[in-house]
């Protein structure tokens, strides 16, 4: 479904991503692991269209989307949850969800249904639907951003560090939700530093170090490879 080949991303002279090739099959949950600064988030933002690729290709269902703008990627079914969470703090929870459905705003019936479904899944969001999103707690904001991404009915979800800075119980909740989304047939690329949690839900994993893919395999293989611990924890 998604194929990345020889991807490079640079910020001026600094090469954050030097050589990344990976692929996602339909319905698969693939996790991209690695220490801080390994280039995981840059890879993800580049796929989302928010960062330009310096070299390499990105293909979505066989079509070259390397230079596609972020709004085009969204229309093609790629929903992104960035690391910085990025709720629109002065918009209400409801308005945030409404914007999530921007690409299918003319399908008011379907959007309404999805909104009701999200509120069912996250009762706390329903309670606070009229509140500005900036007043939510970190965990609630994370739920809102994932719910907002789902409002576009994506085919691929790009999730960047959904557990970052959250309390352990909230992290468990978020991972339960990720497992649920996977069961619904959604294709997910999950970037994580919390390797054990990510490997527990993933089908396959890639490990990044200094802008390159250092290892890949099934989640079980990667989890069993003890030397990798040093690789992705020590960076």
């Amino acid at each position, binding site marked *: 479904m998604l194929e990345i080949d020889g991807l490079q991303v640079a910020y001026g002279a600094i090469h954050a991503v030097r050589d990344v090739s990976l692929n996602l099959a339909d319905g698969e949950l693939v996790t991209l692991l690695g220490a801080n600064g390994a280039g995981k988030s840059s890879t993800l933002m580049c796929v989302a269209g928010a960062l330009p690729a310096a070299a390499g290709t990105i293909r979505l269902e066989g079509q070259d989307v390397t230079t596609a703008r972020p709004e085009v990627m*969204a229309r093609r079914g790629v929903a992104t949850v960035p690391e910085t969470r990025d709720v629109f*703090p002065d918009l209400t929870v409801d308005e945030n969800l409404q*914007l999530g459905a*921007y690409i299918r705003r003319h399908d008011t019936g379907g959007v309404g249904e999805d909104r009701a479904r999200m509120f069912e899944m996250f009762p706390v969001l329903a309670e606070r639907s009229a509140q500005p999103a900036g007043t939510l707690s970190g965990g609630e904001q994370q739920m809102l951003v994932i719910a907002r991404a789902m409002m*576009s009915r994506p085919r691929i979800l790009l999730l960047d560090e959904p557990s970052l800075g959250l309390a352990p119980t909230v992290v468990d909740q978020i991972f339960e939700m990720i497992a649920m989304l996977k069961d619904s047939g959604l294709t997910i690329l999950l970037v994580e530093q919390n390797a054990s949690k990510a490997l527990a839900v993933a089908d396959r994993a890639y490990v990044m170090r200094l802008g390159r893919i250092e290892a890949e395999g099934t989640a079980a293989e990667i989890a069993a490879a003890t030397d990798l611990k040093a690789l992705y924890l020590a960076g």
Partner: protein
Amino acid sequence: MIDVLSLGGAYALMALGLVIVYGILRLVNFAYGELIMVAGYTMYLTSGSGLPWLVMAAVAVLMAIVAGIATDYVAFRPVRAKSVTAVLITSFAFSTLLQNAALLFISPRPRNVPLPEIFSVTVQFAGVITPARNLITIAAAVVMLALFSWLMRRTVLGIAMRAAATNFTMARMLGVPANLIISSAFAISGLLAGVVSMLWIGRIGAVVPGIGLEPLLIAFIATVIGGMRSLQGAVLGGFLLAFMDTTLNFTLPQDLLKFRDAFTFSLVILILLWRPQGLIKGPASGQRT
């Protein structure tokens, strides 16, 4: 009181037109004053056509909107991705270009603009005698502010524009097209400039190439007082500035009156010393809690 409300209404609309573009692009559109000029000259050029005033005014406002969108296409879009400085300079250049076009093709001297009777009569309202144009200005400001707030709160486009003002990239990743948002901001800016132009010309009755300078300055100061990023701040700043101007008009002794602007600006400096970010801070961009 009516003076404050009417002047404040006009100032608030000017400020909103500037801040709607600034909020999204982080860039002061220096060609904003020229949108007001464009609407003014449209009035002058159509004055011989014998159309009813309202139709001419509608055409003038429409021209301001077109000029606003043209600003985006000519001055902003080609260099937007390059650097902020480049865009700043093209916005200045576009402003100068429009002004000089007016100088060259029309005239450096003031041109009379037709005004309907109602702008020059005075009426008695709530016990005071006031020019009817003040009441018209207040009414227009109320209508425009209501329309603007409905647009920003109730329509998907408005919500998307508010979102883009805090985090443009995230809005784009939800599928909101950047060009649409920016062009819409310029169109709304043009609409406000057009309406302001009608009200402003209603006060002075003529149009000159430099007509946009004072509204631009006022809008700029009002947004600085109110907070550059906040739409409510722009409105508040507009009314506050009008309040200061009007109060000084009444209280300053005759021989100090010509220094009114110096007093106004001193007050602006005091406000900024007290609250450097403006009275209303506006949305912090991408802040996490």
